């Protein structure tokens, strides 16, 4: 029997999801062909905001890669926009003369962003926010310090502005209404959102009507508002909504209003043609969110595999993907005569919750600052359950409410249907999670994330996933109240592990794993490096470093690059160098044909593209010129950046270069929980940018201000002033003491700013300002350094771990194939 032919127009979230749902029900029924206009595989469009913000990469958001199409026998025509449908012949024609006949056709053509017809809309630098090309255009324009204006204060507009602010731009959201996200938020929550965005460097201009986009030489330079104000910008993003993409449907004479009209089985006016997703109009409604699309796809798959599901429209809920801003909204919040409001505010925590009731049932909810119970309110709303008897505690959330009624909060989770979706980002339903827990013996949130991807994207379903784990495992699941487990191999947190290493005198990785009941034979790539570090720190001079528990960079003392070559960074103390050193570097570059030489952000020279087998010889030459490893690869002291200070600068108050050199010489080779970078500036003009380093010194006339907790990586943080000392000696002692405290107390991979946020600046200050404790810390640091300041390059050149660099040789050549 020949298979029926199923053709899908649209390779986006809806089209692929529909196919997945069909395959799940009847994998052999159809011969499937998908046409996609974008030249790439299927990805999670709703996660483009974190990609824009630099919090994720494209690879992280691919839903189905090429193997999926191949394994399921799906023919994918990517980059082939469909041009017409011949309904009489049941034939789809695409660009380039491609054709495909169908028995069933699915339209999943999505929607296009609306471009406001403003004068100047065609200037270069005016973009929309819809697909990966838009993200790439925006990130290319996102020069730190440049300005971006986003027209539209809806969900996407805000996420775009936040993402670009994260990339260093000055971002301004221009919104026609007086409240951001006014379709989802009331005025109170909108106000809190405006404030929260301001804290994250996003300005908001409300009640502002755009009049003209102004430019110069074809490039956008600003946005003129109706009231005459001009907001200068280098990039302008329009994010004012979407319009269903109905061109093909219209041309094929299907019934189209705002979207392609479908019935409850997602069937268009032609019974062989179906439509799903944003291009659809169902019962007069068009949708632009992911949850309704998933619901449509399930119904459609039923219809295509002989089932009889019906789609009855969706109740919507929204979450904002801006780090640290927890916003949830569902249903109605406009209130009115027949509605009652329950409102809870906690100014200290910045929490606002409002539950709207109608006739004793939840009609809507707006949560700001604490949205953990969003799913619970949403379920109450969808089920239409009467909440009269839990009214008093409703606003305090599920745990409080059910706890007070003597109910087991896990009962609700246990009652959830297996096909109920838990993670909207990755489309994971409850049954997938429970069978993974049972089938693979998963016991931790991390493990569920790794295996199913549930809660691995935006994380808003994390509480629900934890409840599912708890419901299934009972006491065997330890909710991560407090310490986070080191990894999936253990339930224990970093703090407990460190404490027991010291208390029980555990001196090797196997000893730790045995004593602490690790659940895997020899750990994983997450816990082994952490344990190795904890042991190095706890037992200096005694513990034998476990090479196989170090990442390749630390194992070979060079940074692995994307093509498998390595980069080498020699130490230049305090950023100071000499003719002899530069000459040695130049010679090495020529001798080994090193393709790229680059100055790093920490004032060192980076030699990029070195072959692994050349590493020992490169180091030998650099060693011969007196240079040692810069540890630019390690969770270790990397650089001390300096300015020229009083030696040369007319403003310099102290010898900042000299202090930087001294610090680096005292501290080099020290392994730390995460990379460690220092800066010393000779005056408050701060030319060494010391206030965004892990530890920064700002020299002033009266002495040395010691700052900690800066960062300029994934997060950008300004340091906090920890203490001030009068002499250079005291500065060195204090800094060594801080580093030792950090080494002994922080969790592996925890930068100083994160550690500081966890334990508190005051607690750190108390240790450092107490002369006895500071002295003891300094002594322990100095002791550990006796074993740490060994140049790893020289050791390797002398032959240690030579096997690491020489490939195995074959006794016989392979015969030609």
């Amino acid at each position, binding site marked *: 029997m020949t298979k029926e032919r199923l053709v899908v127009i649209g390779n986006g979230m809806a089209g692929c999801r529909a196919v997945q749902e069909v395959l799940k029900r009847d994998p052999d029924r159809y011969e499937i062909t998908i046409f996609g206009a974008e030249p790439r595989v299927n990805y999670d469009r709703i996660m483009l905001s974190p990609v824009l913000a630099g919090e994720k990469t494209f690879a992280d958001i691919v839903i189905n890669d090429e193997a*999926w199409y191949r394994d399921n026998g799906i023919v994918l025509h990517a980059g082939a926009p469909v041009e017409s449908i011949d309904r009489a012949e049941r034939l789809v024609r695409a660009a380039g003369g491609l054709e495909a006949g169908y028995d069933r056709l699915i339209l999943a053509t999505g929607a296009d962003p609306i471009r406001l017809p403003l004068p100047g809309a065609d200037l270069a630098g005016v973009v929309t926010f819809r697909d990966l090309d838009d993200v790439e255009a925006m990130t290319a324009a996102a020069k730190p310090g440049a300005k971006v204006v986003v027209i539209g204060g809806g969900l996407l507009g805000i996420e775009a502005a936040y993402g670009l602010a994260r990339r260093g731009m000055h971002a301004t959201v221009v919104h026609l209404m007086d409240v951001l996200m006014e379709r989802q938020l009331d005025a109170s929550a909108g106000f809190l959102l405006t404030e929260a965005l301001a804290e994250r460097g996003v300005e908001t201009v409300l009640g502002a009507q755009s009049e003209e986009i102004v430019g110069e030489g074809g490039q956008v330079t600003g946005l003129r508002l109706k009231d005459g104000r001009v907001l200068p910008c280098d990039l302008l993003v329009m994010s004012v909504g979407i319009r269903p993409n109905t061109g093909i449907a219209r041309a094929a004479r299907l019934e189209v209003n705002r979207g392609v009209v479908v019935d409850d089985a997602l069937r268009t006016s032609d019974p062989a043609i179906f439509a799903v997703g944003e291009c659809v109009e169902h019962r007069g409604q068009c949708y632009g969110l992911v949850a309704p699309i998933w619901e449509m796809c399930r119904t459609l798959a039923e219809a295509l595999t002989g089932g009889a599901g019906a789609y009855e429209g969706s109740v919507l809920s929204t979450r904002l993907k801006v780090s640290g801003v927890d916003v949830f909204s569902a249903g109605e919040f406009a209130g009115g005569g027949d509605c009652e409001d329950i409102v809870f505010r906690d100014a200290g925590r910045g929490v606002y919750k409002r539950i709207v009731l109608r006739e004793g049932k939840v009609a809507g909810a707006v949560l700001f600052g604490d949205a953990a119970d969003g799913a619970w309110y949403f379920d109450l709303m969808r089920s239409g359950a009467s909440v009269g008897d839990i009214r008093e505690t409703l606003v305090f959330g599920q745990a409080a409410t059910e706890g007070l009624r003597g109910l087991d909060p896990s009962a609700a989770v246990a009652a959830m249907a297996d096909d109920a979706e838990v993670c909207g980002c990755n489309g994971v339903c409850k049954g997938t999670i429970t069978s993974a827990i049972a089938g693979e013996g998963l016991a931790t949130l991390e493990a569920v994330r790794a295996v199913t991807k549930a809660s691995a994207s935006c994380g808003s379903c994390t509480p629900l996933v934890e409840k599912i784990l708890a419901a299934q495992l009972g006491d065997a699941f330890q909710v991560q109240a407090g310490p986070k487990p080191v990894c999936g191999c253990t339930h224990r947190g970093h703090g407990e592990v460190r404490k027991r290493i010291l208390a029980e005198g555990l001196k090797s990785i196997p000893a730790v794993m045995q004593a602490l009941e690790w659940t895997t034979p020899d750990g994983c790539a997450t816990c082994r490096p952490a344990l190795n570090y904890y042991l190095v720190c706890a037992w200096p001079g005694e513990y034998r470093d476990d090479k196989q528990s170090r990442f390749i960079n630390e194992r070979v003392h060079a940074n*692995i690059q994307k093509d*498998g070559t390595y980069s080498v960074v020699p130490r230049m103390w305090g950023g100071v160098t000499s003719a002899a050193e530069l000459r040695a570097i130049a010679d090495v570059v020529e001798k080994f044909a090193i393709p790229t030489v680059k100055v790093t952000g920490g004032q060192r020279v980076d030699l990029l593209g070195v072959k692994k087998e050349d590493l020992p010889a490169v180091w030998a030459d650099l060693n011969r010129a007196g240079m040692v490893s810069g540890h630019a690869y390690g969770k270790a002291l990397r650089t001390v950046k300096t300015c020229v200070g009083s030696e040369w600068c007319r403003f310099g108050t102290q010898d900042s270069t000299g202090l930087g050199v001294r610090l680096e010489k005292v501290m080099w080779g020290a392994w730390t929980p995460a990379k460690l970078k220092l800066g010393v500036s000779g005056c408050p003009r701060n030319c060494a940018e010391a206030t965004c380093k892990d530890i920064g010194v700002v020299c002033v006339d009266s002495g040395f201000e010691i700052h900690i907790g800066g960062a300029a990586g994934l997060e950008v943080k300004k340091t906090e002033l920890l203490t001030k000392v009068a002499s250079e000696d005291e500065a060195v002692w204090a800094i060594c003491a801080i580093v030792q405290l950090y080494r002994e107390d922080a969790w592996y991979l925890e930068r100083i700013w994160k550690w500081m946020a966890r334990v508190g600046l005051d607690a750190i200050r108390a240790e450092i300002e107490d002369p006895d404790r500071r002295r003891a810390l300094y002594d322990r640091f100095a002791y550990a350094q006796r074993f740490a300041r060994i140049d790893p390059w020289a050791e390797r050149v002398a032959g240690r771990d030579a096997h690491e660099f020489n490939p195995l040789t074959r006794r016989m050549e392979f015969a030609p194939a």
Partner: protein
Amino acid sequence: MNAHVKEETIWIDVGAVTDVPLRGARRVPTPRGAVAVFRTGDGRVFALKDACPHKGGPLSQGIVHGHAVACPLHNWSIDLATGEPLGADRGKGCSPTVPLRIEDGRILLGQV
């Protein structure tokens, strides 16, 4: 493990088992691309094409744990016995396994 290997397999001695560190790997260059030979904590030896199915990362440079290796570029975990990615990346390609046998403490790689 070698059921699929045909009789005319040519076996090539690439070194002693002890040349590969425990929980470590060695790289073997071949005209058809490098092979990674792994030795796990329990003493088993495995061989895979030295390229992660994700971005071609050199698996021989990764951290070996259990019967898996974490790719040094983006931390995909690869099953040493099958070459398949583990966890959430399951099903996204494969690093081909290379026929291998141990004889008198020597590692022999097969070519069919």
